[in-house]
């Protein structure tokens, strides 16, 4: 009984659904607030993401004629389910709901489901902007995914385990993976920007070009769920990056794990916001050539280096 | 811009008319030509004097006739004026000499109902798709 209730607690409250939703809203606010501050504005109040979410949930839900109704209703749920499942295996401050050897691969796979759902959402909601946005989302997926995966292969091979928890705990006794594989960290960071479709890689939802991209025709509850799933994906992505690359100690002091984790997560979030503020959006062909001509070769070099070190 | 030389050449294009240049405020010379000479005259201006900057085409319904004004500019303004009858007004397009004239001609055509022969794309420019009335700049009191 105790096991069951604690498992339920882990699933629903911490570090499960409730905690992730709270983080998603908080991260969204921090991101918007930091961006506003960097742009010389005041920014939204802290409850803004919550108000947005509640408002959207209570709005009329319409779809254009010709859109595939069941699919459009199911896709945000699929996306949400995938990121929530992925979150189970990503430890928060050293605590993982569950773990097994190879969960890194499963998580990376689950995290790419929202991208596919996003593409389908664009494809099935008939508006031209949605279709263009959807096809861009797919193209973008091919541009960032390979270097992103290869960047995560480095730490896994070095620590000899494909379990996120294991990689994290191994590091915490040694130095952070970011110092051993700085290139890998950078690639994972850039890949994450692409994965989360954040500025400057917000190509599939470029407001000034194609409206809101695949989500142009979504409204009300479906839009709210889409936003929630994409923001939880941001949370999981940041946690994953911190676990795999930043789990080590950097100060040499004995800081409580949870506190250290929180600081590192905030740092990553700030870095994401700053990157969004500093650059102009790239074009999809520019991103593709960046992905294949710069990021992928770098990732390959990183992997070869790891193999060589491991062998030597 | 050598106005004298230009006028000399323009006289050759329309031998029947005596070209009387008329100076108008702010550096502008007006010349009146018959409608069938406009294309030839502009051809001379473009080919011999490289006068290709057509600033605008003004169309006006004076009540008795429709007047077209072609405003050229090259450090000094030169305007060619030509009168057209109110009934069945038509004139040769200039788009083959000056592609930029296309929009100006479309506007004159919908505002005053002037037909431009040879215009590549004579659709409406600014009037709504469902416009059913008379061309809006024709004087209402004289409309038939």
């Amino acid at each position, binding site marked *: 009984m105790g096991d069951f209730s604690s498992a339920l607690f882990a699933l629903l409250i911490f570090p499960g659904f409730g905690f992730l939703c709270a983080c998603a809203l908080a991260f969204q606010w921090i991101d918007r607030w930091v961006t506003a501050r960097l742009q010389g504005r005041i920014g939204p109040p802290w409850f803004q993401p919550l108000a947005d979410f509640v408002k959207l949930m209570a709005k009329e839900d319409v779809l254009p004629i010709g859109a595939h109704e069941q699919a459009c209703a199911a896709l945000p749920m699929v996306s949400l389910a995938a990121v929530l499942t992925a979150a189970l295996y990503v430890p928060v401050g050293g605590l993982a709901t569950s773990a097994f050897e190879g969960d890194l691969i499963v998580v990376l796979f689950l995290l790419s489901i929202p991208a596919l759902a996003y593409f389908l959402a664009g494809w099935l909601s008939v508006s031209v902007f949605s279709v263009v946005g959807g096809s861009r989302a797919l193209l973008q997926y091919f541009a960032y995914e390979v270097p992103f995966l290869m960047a995560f292969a480095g730490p896994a091979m070095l620590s000899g385990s494909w379990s996120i928890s294991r990689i994290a705990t191994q590091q915490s006794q040694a130095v952070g993976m970011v110092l051993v594989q700085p290139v890998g960290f950078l690639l994972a960071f850039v890949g994450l920007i692409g994965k989360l479709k954040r500025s400057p890689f917000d190509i599939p939802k470029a407001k000034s070009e194609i409206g809101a991209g695949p989500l142009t025709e979504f409204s*009300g509850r479906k839009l709210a769920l889409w936003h929630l799933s994409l923001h939880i994906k941001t949370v999981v992505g940041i946690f994953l990056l911190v676990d795999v690359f930043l789990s080590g100690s950097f100060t040499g002091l004995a800081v409580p794990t949870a506190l250290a984790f929180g600081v590192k997560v905030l740092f990553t979030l700030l870095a994401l916001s700053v990157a969004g503020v500093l650059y102009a959006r790239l074009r999809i062909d520019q991103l593709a050539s960046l992905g294949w001509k710069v990021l992928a070769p770098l990732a390959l070099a990183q992997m070869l280096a790891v193999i060589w070190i491991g062998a030597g | 811009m050598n106005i004298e030389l230009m006028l000399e050449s323009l006289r050759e294009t329309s031998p029947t008319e005596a070209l009387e240049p008329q100076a108008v405020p702010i550096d502008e010379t007006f010349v009146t030509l018959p409608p069938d000479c406009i294309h030839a005259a502009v051809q001379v201006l473009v080919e011999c004097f490289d006068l290709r900057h057509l600033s605008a085409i003004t169309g006006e319904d004076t009540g008795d006739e429709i007047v077209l004004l072609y405003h050229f500019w090259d450090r000094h303004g030169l305007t060619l004026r030509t009168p057209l009858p109110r009934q069945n007004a038509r004139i040769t397009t200039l788009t083959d000499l000056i592609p930029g004239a296309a929009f100006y001609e479309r506007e004159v055509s919908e505002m005053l109902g002037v037909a431009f022969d040879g215009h590549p794309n004579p659709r409406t420019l600014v009037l709504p798709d469902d416009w059913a009335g008379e061309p809006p700049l024709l004087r209402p009191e004289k409309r038939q």
Partner: protein
Amino acid sequence: MSRIMHCIAHRIVRWARRKSPWTLHFNSGGCNGCDIEIVDALTPRYDVERLGILKEASPRHADVLLCTGPVTRQARDRLRRIYEQMPAPRWVVAIGSCSCSGGVFRGGYNVLGGIDRVLPVDVYVPGCPCRPEAIIEGLVLLLEMME
């Protein structure tokens, strides 16, 4: 019990609507003067994001339609269509004298003379052009009306 729950839910939703009005901007034939002031309200000096106001790109995401211009014949159908695409509940704010009444363009052969000839308007913001402060005032008025 269920009535109390319903009442609470209702209040929460009303609170959320007041705190998160997403806007869509449509120029129905105005001179740009009010339009640049609307955009200006988003920028650092006025920053309406602190009131939760965002400028959205798609009518499906918008709660408030900000209209400028006296409505030309060509823009009329489009204006109506954009309003129809917006999910309920939705509000319309007419910004600028010409969108309130036709303004200087009243009597022109191609203008209808005001947004309210086509759509139900909730708030009128006069001024030619109106200042960003006036636009924000109008939006705050709308938010108070939602009470």
